[in-house]
């Protein structure tokens, strides 16, 4: 067998799954003693160009409580045409279509390489994709212009049969009717009045014809209800109208007096958007795309009053319980998010403003529905424009990289139970035999709804070993987990992706070495970080840090090799070597530290952390630093202040920012213009190299990172300086007495101090 590293990588590529432990402790007691829970990062829709979907229905286990899908782990009796479910051991007859089955004539789902397989099923009418634009008109003129252009551009990217709708809002909320000729017509709602879904549908005239529709449906299944077509129209029909409509979009006409914020009814606008889709296309893939240029200032969901002299809440206010509107607004948006999720729609938020826009309150809308959250300074920036464009990017098949209304179901073999999930999902509250009583993340269910997901959407799924210590599992047997993801593909097909994985059980007492080796510290770090961030949403920051610290110390105590009370003797095996460092950077990250971040920024960072895949998540925890110099090819260097050298160019990728930092000497050279001199062409190449690499990252990433080009002493250098390990500070600079590196003016502890403390605590008996 190859190394675990390769195994892990192979598994990730094939199944989109990474486990914290690749050998599973065989009893509950041992599992809890291993500190890091048995968990995995699952990327349900990981792009698999080599995996064409099969065009038939999966075969389900006939036991009603199981319903697992036939998979390569099942035992098959080819003679009797029977298969045994590997989760519940139910023996099932193959369906008639499988009559010709034999050892040599196996269906794909029985082949080991198809541990992940995708089925295309024909169920119910295919419904088009729906895009509902919810546009804030309280913008500056050029901002609005840029947004209008982006929106118009996006129309050309949509599939022609996709339905689009437009809601604009400012002081009032306007739902535009798209089917009318000659005169543009819109329904207007007061921005201060919360309406129930029923009221909204009544007022839009959607409810009345729905009654006869329901009666008529069995008789005559029409393509679409007539009513809905007034507000949601296929793009090919109303392309021109909508382009014109967007073009004529005016800034909110209500006067804004000096010293006031414009009145912005985001809460009601969103509520109406949700109500509109709820009434017309429930359980159909739909995106509500909210474009807002400022905080909601009136009505339900208002985040701040319209007096400019009262600033929007900060972390300080929240801690002091001074954020007047926060709780009410959060509740409003949470309710909306729940409804949206129940209907299978997702909400994107594109917030572009220099100040906060209330993402803290609105975050649940995206987090619970799997929508995107994008934060920028202005709609007139490439950050927004390109990010927005990237939403509509297509995969190798020419399909959108988006899927809708997914349901993820987790099935486990008997020794395991599922404790919860963390990611852009909501619980479907499906209790079953494999649901654990303990909750980690969103638990208490074996099914989750992910209303919007893309190929990188990743969930952390946490398990609990329930096998009792005194009932040992036979040697060599394997535990299995099956992930069944049903979703609406962007081509409007209904698909089911089934991933079945199995791992060996190991006895911790006798096989600790093996288990250690099977530890995936990267996955573990991300999974622990997700737990920490999940806790941070509801708990005080210091408590979370303390919890993380204790987990780390316990892990070190468990797996470190040391002599008691002798910190210097402390060693960690290779499989664990990076883990403390990840934890160190995680503690400093904006996901857990709110200092220097606005509540909106924290929400934004956490949103992305909870949905990106492992690689991206790791970058977020511990940014990558590349160094460019004349001394050799670009190399990754330690994220440490000692890496900041005068004759280097640094490229830092924190996921949210790409920072190019010119060292002191390089900056001077550049100022002197050496790059323009033919004899210093190599310098020009050196300057260019990080730019090219940065461009590569920018191309691939969603959302588009903030691109910062700075130099030694530049104000923007703070992005770099705040991230690197402060090994040199004003406190120890002279003690070290070295010329290299740049001191960071901070009182934060450095990695060295952190590690020293960790060792001391790990070896002490106190803990």
């Amino acid at each position, binding site marked *: 067998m190859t190394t675990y590293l390769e195994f892990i990588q192979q598994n990730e590529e094939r199944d989109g799954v990474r486990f914290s432990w690749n050998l599973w402790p065989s009893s509950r007691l041992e599992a809890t003693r291993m500190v890091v829970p048995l968990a995995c990062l699952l990327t349900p829709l990981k792009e698999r160009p080599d995996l064409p979907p099969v065009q038939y229905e999966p075969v389900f286990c006939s036991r009603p409580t199981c319903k697992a899908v036939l998979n390569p782990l099942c035992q098959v009796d080819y003679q009797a045409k029977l298969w045994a479910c590997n989760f519940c051991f139910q023996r099932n007859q193959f369906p008639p279509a499988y009559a010709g089955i034999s050892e040599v004539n196996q269906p794909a789902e029985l082949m080991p390489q198809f541990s992940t397989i995708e089925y295309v099923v024909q169920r119910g009418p295919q419904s088009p994709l729906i895009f509902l634009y919810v546009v804030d008109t309280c913008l500056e003129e050029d901002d609005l212009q840029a947004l209008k252009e982006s929106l118009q551009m996006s129309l050309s990217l949509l599939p022609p049969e996709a339905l689009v709708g437009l809601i604009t809002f400012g002081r*009032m909320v*306007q739902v535009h*009717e798209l089917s*009318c000729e*000659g*005169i*543009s*017509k*819109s*329904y*207007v*709602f*007061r921005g201060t*009045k919360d*309406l129930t879904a029923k009221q909204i549908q*009544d*007022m*839009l*005239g959607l409810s009345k014809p729905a009654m006869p529709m329901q009666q008529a449906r069995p008789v005559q299944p029409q393509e679409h209800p007539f009513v809905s077509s007034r507000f949601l129209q296929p793009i090919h029909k109303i392309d021109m109208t909508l382009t014109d409509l967007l073009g*004529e979009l005016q800034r909110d*006409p*209500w*006067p804004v007096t000096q010293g006031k914020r414009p009145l912005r009814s985001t809460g009601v606008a969103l509520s109406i958007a949700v109500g509109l889709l709820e009434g017309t296309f429930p359980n159909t893939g739909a995106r509500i795309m909210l474009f807002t240029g400022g905080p909601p200032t009136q009505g339900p969901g208002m985040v701040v009053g319209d007096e400019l002299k009262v600033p929007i809440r900060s972390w300080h206010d929240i801690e002091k319980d001074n954020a007047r509107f926060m709780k009410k607004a959060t509740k409003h948006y949470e309710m909306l998010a729940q409804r949206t999720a129940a209907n299978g729609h997702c909400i994107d938020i594109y917030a572009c403003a220099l100040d906060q826009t209330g993402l803290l309150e609105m975050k649940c809308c995206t987090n619970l529905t799997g929508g995107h959250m994008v934060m920028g300074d202005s709609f007139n920036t490439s950050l927004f424009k390109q990010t927005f464009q990237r939403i509509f990017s297509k995969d190798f098949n020419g399909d959108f990289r988006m899927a809708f209304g997914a349901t993820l179901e987790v099935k486990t073999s008997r020794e395991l139970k599922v404790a919860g999930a963390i990611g852009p999902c909501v619980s479907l509250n499906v209790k079953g035999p494999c649901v654990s009583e303990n909750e980690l993340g969103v638990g208490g269910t074996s099914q989750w709804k992910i209303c919007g997901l893309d190929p990188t959407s990743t969930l952390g799924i946490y398990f609990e070993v329930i096998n009792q210590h005194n009932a040992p599992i036979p040697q060599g047997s394997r535990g299995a987990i099956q992930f069944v993801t049903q979703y609406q593909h962007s081509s409007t097909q209904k698909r089911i992706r089934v991933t079945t994985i199995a791992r060996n059980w190991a006895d911790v007492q006798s096989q600790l070495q093996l288990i250690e080796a099977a530890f995936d510290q990267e996955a573990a770090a991300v999974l622990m970080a997700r737990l920490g961030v999940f806790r941070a949403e509801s708990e005080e920051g210091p408590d979370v840090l303390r919890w993380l610290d204790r987990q780390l110390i316990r892990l070190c105590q468990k797996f470190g090799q040391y002599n008691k009370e002798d910190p210097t003797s402390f060693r960690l095996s290779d499989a664990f070597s990076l883990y403390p460092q990840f934890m160190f950077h995680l503690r400093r990250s904006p996901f857990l530290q709110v200092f220097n971040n606005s509540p909106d920024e924290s929400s934004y960072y956490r949103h992305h952390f909870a949905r990106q895949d492992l690689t991206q998540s790791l970058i977020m925890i511990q940014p990558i630093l590349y160094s460019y110099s004349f001394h050799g090819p670009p190399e990754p260097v330690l994220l440490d202040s000692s890496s900041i050298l005068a004759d280097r160019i640094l490229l830092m990728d924190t996921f949210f920012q790409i920072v190019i930092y010119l060292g002191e000497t390089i900056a001077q050279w550049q100022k002197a213009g050496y790059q323009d001199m033919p004899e210093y062409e190599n310098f020009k190449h050196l300057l260019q190299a990080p730019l090219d690499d940065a461009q590569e990252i920018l191309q691939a990433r969603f959302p588009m990172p903030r691109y910062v080009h700075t130099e030694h002493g530049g104000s923007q250098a703070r992005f770099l300086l705040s991230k690197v390990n402060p090994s040199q500070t004003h406190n120890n600079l002279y003690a070290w007495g070295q010329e290299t590196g740049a001191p960071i003016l901070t009182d934060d502890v450095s990695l060295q101090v952190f590690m020293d403390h960790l060792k001391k605590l790990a070896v002490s008996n106190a803990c």
Partner: protein
Amino acid sequence: MSQQGYVATPPYSQSQPGIDSPPHYGHYGDPSHATSPPGVMKPVGGLGAAAPGVMASPGPPPPGLQHLGQNGAHASGHSPQRFPGPPPVNSTAPSYAQHQPCTQSSYPSPVSTSSVAHLGSQLSQLQINNYGSGVPPPSQGPPGPPPAASFQAPPRPLQTSILQPGSQVLPPPPTTLNGPGASSLSPPGPRQDGLPGPPPLGAQYQPPPPPGPALGVGYPPPPHQAAHYGPQMAGTQLSYSGGFAGGAAQMAGPPPPPKKLDPDSIPSPIQVIESDRATRGGQVYATNTRGQVPPLVTTDCVIQDQGNASPRYIRCTTYCFPCTSDMAKQAQIPLAAVIKPFATIPSNETPLYLVNHGENGPVRCNRCKAYMCPFMQFIEGGRRYQCGFCSCVNDVPPFYFQHLDHIGRRLDHYEKPELSLGSYEFVATLDYCRKNKPPSPPAFIFMIDVSYSNIKNGLVKLICEELKTVLEKLPKEEQEETSAIRVGFITYNKVLHFFNVKSNLAQPQMLVVTDVGEVFVPLLDGFLVNYQESQSVIHNLLDQIPELFADSNENETVFVPVIQAGMEALKEAECPGKLYIFHSSLPTAEAPGKLKNRDDKKLVNTDKEKILFQPQTSVYDSLAKDCVTHGCSVTIFLFPSQYVDVASLGLVPQLTGGTLYKYNNFQMHLDSQQFLNDLRHDIEKKIGFDAIMRVRTSTGFRATDFFGGIFMNNTTDVEMAAIDCDKAVTVEFKHDDKLSEDSGALLQCAVLYTTIGGQRRLRIHNLGLSCSSQLADLYKSCETDALINFFAKSAFKAVLHQPLKVIREILVNQTAHMLACYRKNCASPSAASQLILPDSMKILPVYMNCLLKNCVLLSRPEISTDERAYQRQLVMTMSVADSQLFFYPQLLPIHTLDVKSTTLPAAVRCSESRLSEEGVFLLANGLNMFLWLGVSSPPELIQGIFNVPSFAHINTDMTLLPEVGSPHSHQLRMIMSMIQRKRPYSMKEKSNKQWKSFSEP
């Protein structure tokens, strides 16, 4: 006793010891009314009991039963002898006979019969005769004896008319004093066959009494007054007799041919109008004298403002106030002024001057805040002035100082309008503006009901087409080139559609507001626009509206949210304005102000009938209040095809100074012209917005009650969202102290308003009335037209709170009391059965009867509730001229027309008996114009007018006279347009081949 209830101070009750009724009357809302003993309501009993109190002092011994009986016997016994002319020819109506027992029983107690009682019963008799409960109106016109026969030579040359029981044949004394009236004398011959020719003016006139000491009981006209009246004396002093002979005649028991009231013996309004027209028409009437009685409203003359407001602005029930409240109570003549502050002034009269007193605003009295006016007396060499209203002495502001001349008048007296004129305007400063900000120009919002029926019958298209032209004629300030008024558009059915018609849009945008429960304005910028700037977008919109809703099958409508929307729009735009609502159905959709069909004919003629005149919910009331607060006037054009609850819908326009137009069963080809005329007129007319009116009075009396299209938050400030040139406010005054004959009674009516150009102005009207301690002076200065206006408004207001029966009784009783008081105190003793009318009131009984016959006060189930509510509301804002025509329609003979004449033909008395089968008559009452065609009207006339060969060919559906090139047609159409010209409502023209009831008995 409750007569005093709505009309005047309660004189009876206070001087009545015998009757135990609560001391406070006067309020309709007072529940004690409903529960007061029924006996109290009886006019006869009540009056009878009251008589001793009232009559206490002078008390000529009442003739009592004897006299009555004698009269009765006398009348019946002698009438054959006394009527040498033909006996009643076509006394076809048996109704009198039916009433005989009843009349007899109403005179049972001769002992208590006083002149008051007698009068009351006579009047109520009249009433009963005509409208016995459930009895169809009797044909009123048995031509009695020839008119000449009814005249008697009065025993005394009094300034009064004396009605003798029975008719007496007395040849009309030839008179030379009748002036032009005499020339129109026509021989009695033609009138005997019932043809109402020109009224025999001369015949009814008596020789004028020699003024002076010869008069005993009557009052001698004071010499100065006589001198002042000059030539008019002859006209005003002409008294005439005849009239209520029937009352007495009936008392004699049922004679075989029942005796009727002789219609011609009743004082003729036509004659009064014509004689006033003859004496004062075409002349210059200068308002330089306090307390002078102006010409009648029907008389055209030129009015010159010389210190008192023109009668076009203010008319009073009496121009001479009694000095004390006791006197006022005794006479029971209502003291009221009908103020029409924005009355249209003919082009040959001077328009109002605009006075600017600079940044401090108009000079006002420090104490009572009256504005500088001719009643201010400058003293101390011009350094101070004494207020004519409160007598406070104020310093003259330095900028306003001017020396006085030898008679104590400022040297600049004639240079300053506020010192020499009765009416003028001040520029208002910011202190007079809402929120101390200069007002914005007003806005007009057009709100069109686009429910199915309106689309179907083409109304929406008609309105939209018309708006395109009529918007060109929005009112503007005289000096401006374009109108400052902004316009906005809303359509609605169950939901509201606002339109963005901003000038930079390629096409209008429609914004639908479905939240009718809590309506709001979806946009500000682009909703109210300048018509000129957005013309193309607006035309685009108006073209599209009919098509937009062509497929709509929405039948339900909302109403209150529509007004709310308009009001909110004006509020957001911070400007006053006017809503034009084109509505056609009962608002039944789920929304505030939703109405049920509650038209219940069972309520008619019950005490609950008043409910039909009240709005269904209080929403309308509070909405009206909000509208007034924000300067939002509401005008409604109603196109009902069934019951729409005018009482509810009409409340808002009434309280906000708007107008309600109603077109029953609107049919495009028949009624569109009338509607369009109304719409054009309403949009173009002069109007002021966001107005507050305050009526200040000199000490001794004050304004106590206001009637009209107004809203009152407190007891003094009359708030009007808008006031236009057709709206009048009737103000009632009461004494709170003595008035002196020297200083008189002064009125100042100040209206603070916003002009159509968005300027804040104060319009001031001043009027000085004289005072007298002589009842005779009071009676002499009364104006019947204004009295009827007041009576109508107060009665129509009372309709909301009291049973109609009570109101009718009160009206009858008060009329009776007024006349009785005159008889007792001013006329010389005469037979108790004689009805003695003061000259100024001689047609009051006739007019009062007309008022009582109005469908509002008369419960007849065949008149729709909506129509009654509509007329009730209409009258509330009427000016004197309008109410005069409304209650006493103009009846013009067309068949005797002189085709070369350019003036209106002389009217005939408005009675069915005046119609002849050979005649063609035009009847106009301000709402409708009827062309009545007699069965045997001359074919050439019919050919000339209708261009059809004969009577049978006439299509009576038509509502517009065909334009035929004949002189008859031309002349008739000219007459119609002349009648129409001065009227606020476009009259519906109808041709009637047959047609029954009429106003005059």
